[in-house]
């Protein structure tokens, strides 16, 4: 009888550990990540980024042009077979959500080839899958206490606050870039116009004087 009891306990323990391990392994199928990057795109240049995505993962690509020219850029997203999932020309900002239909390397490119001399600063945020939970050993089935679920919802809310702050910062950077552009343009224009005014007004006087000087020589010649 005691032998059976210990065997049972053993089986139960093994079963528990097996379940935990299985739960762990089930949690690691698709890599999930959120990468947000700001980079500079020189004129006539194209920059491509690649990411390996597993099938069925929901992904979101969001981009915004912060500084440069007319604040627009070409964007293109391709799946592993080369099919174009998203293609827009001269867009200032956009957001695109898709579900990966096959495994492989997805490629997205930003192009500034239409611009001859302005280089652009582009921000993009590529979210693949959901954010991993804080404790990898928990799965969606495990019950959370009220405190824990309150913490999770606060965490989600704060994440969206940070997201909105980022968007606000980008908009403000764009506005500030335009304001600084305007400031330098006003400075150059003022100096330029002052010079033009002076040159034209002095030139006018001397040109007028030259008309009358020629007339005088001809009249004296006729007179004599």
């Amino acid at each position: 009888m005691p032998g059976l009891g210990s065997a049972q306990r053993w089986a139960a323990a093994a079963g528990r550990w097996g379940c935990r391990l299985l739960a762990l392994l089930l949690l690691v199928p698709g890599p999930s990540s959120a990468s947000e990057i700001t980079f500079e795109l020189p004129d006539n240049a194209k920059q491509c980024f690649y990411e390996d995505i597993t099938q069925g993962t929901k992904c979101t690509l969001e981009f915004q042009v912060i500084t440069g020219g007319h604040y627009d850029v070409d964007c293109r997203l391709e799946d592993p077979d080369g099919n174009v999932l998203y293609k827009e020309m001269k867009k200032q900002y956009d957001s695109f959500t898709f579900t990966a239909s096959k495994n492989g390397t997805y490629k997205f490119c930003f192009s500034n080839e239409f611009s001859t001399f302005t280089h652009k600063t582009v921000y993009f945020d590529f979210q693949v899958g959901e954010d991993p939970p804080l404790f990898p050993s928990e799965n969606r089935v495990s019950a959370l206490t009220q405190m824990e679920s309150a913490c999770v919802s606060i965490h989600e809310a704060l994440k969206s606050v940070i997201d909105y702050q980022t968007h606000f910062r980008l908009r403000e950077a764009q506005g500030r870039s335009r304001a600084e552009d305007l400031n330098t343009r006003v400075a150059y224009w003022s100096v330029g116009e002052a010079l033009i005014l002076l040159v034209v007004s002095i030139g006018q006087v001397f040109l007028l004087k030259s008309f009358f000087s020629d007339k005088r020589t001809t009249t004296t010649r006729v007179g004599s």
Partner: protein
Amino acid sequence: MALLLLLGQLLALMGHGGAFYLEVRELEEKCFIQEIPDGIVVIGNYKTELYDPAMEKYQPSPQWINLFVFVKDPENKNLLAQQYGPQGSFTFTSQSPGEHQICLHLESIRFALFYDGKLAIHLDMQLGEHTNDYAEFAAKDKLTQMHLRVQQLVEQVELIQKEQEYQRWREERFRQTSESTNQRVLWWSILQTFILVATGVWQMQHLKSFFKAKKLV
């Protein structure tokens, strides 16, 4: 239980490290910008790979390919200028708020020519509460799960607070630029009117004396 947690964290990290990658050539410099407030820790996890034309795919880089990382703060001061191995992570803390430039380039430290070698840099930059290693906190301070969750929320709120302070600083700069533009436009209008009137008067006087000299008036 702790061992399982650690193992889980390791597995999650490996899975999480699947960030995007970009293709570069040797010595080609790629720069990124991070606009952050001061006192923020930024961690960049990277992995480099070398394209193998025989197998037509990327393989992990050999040890003699190194990554050079240069980080410049908004005042153009060097925060970080270091050489790292083919994979690992680099970290820096911002001292002043503003745009930080992070430039990377790959170099082979032995004198091997790379004729057409294609390289890939996998990059994942994290800041704020994502830089915390919760498994380490739990092990070191023996904190409960609840405590760790609250710690994560505290870090998030601190990041929001720092960002708000930075926002106030930026808004002041924006206001200064706008007021400077306003002043310049105002002074320029006054100056332009003055120049116009002065040149008009000078023109009239000059021409009058000229015509008087020519005995036409």
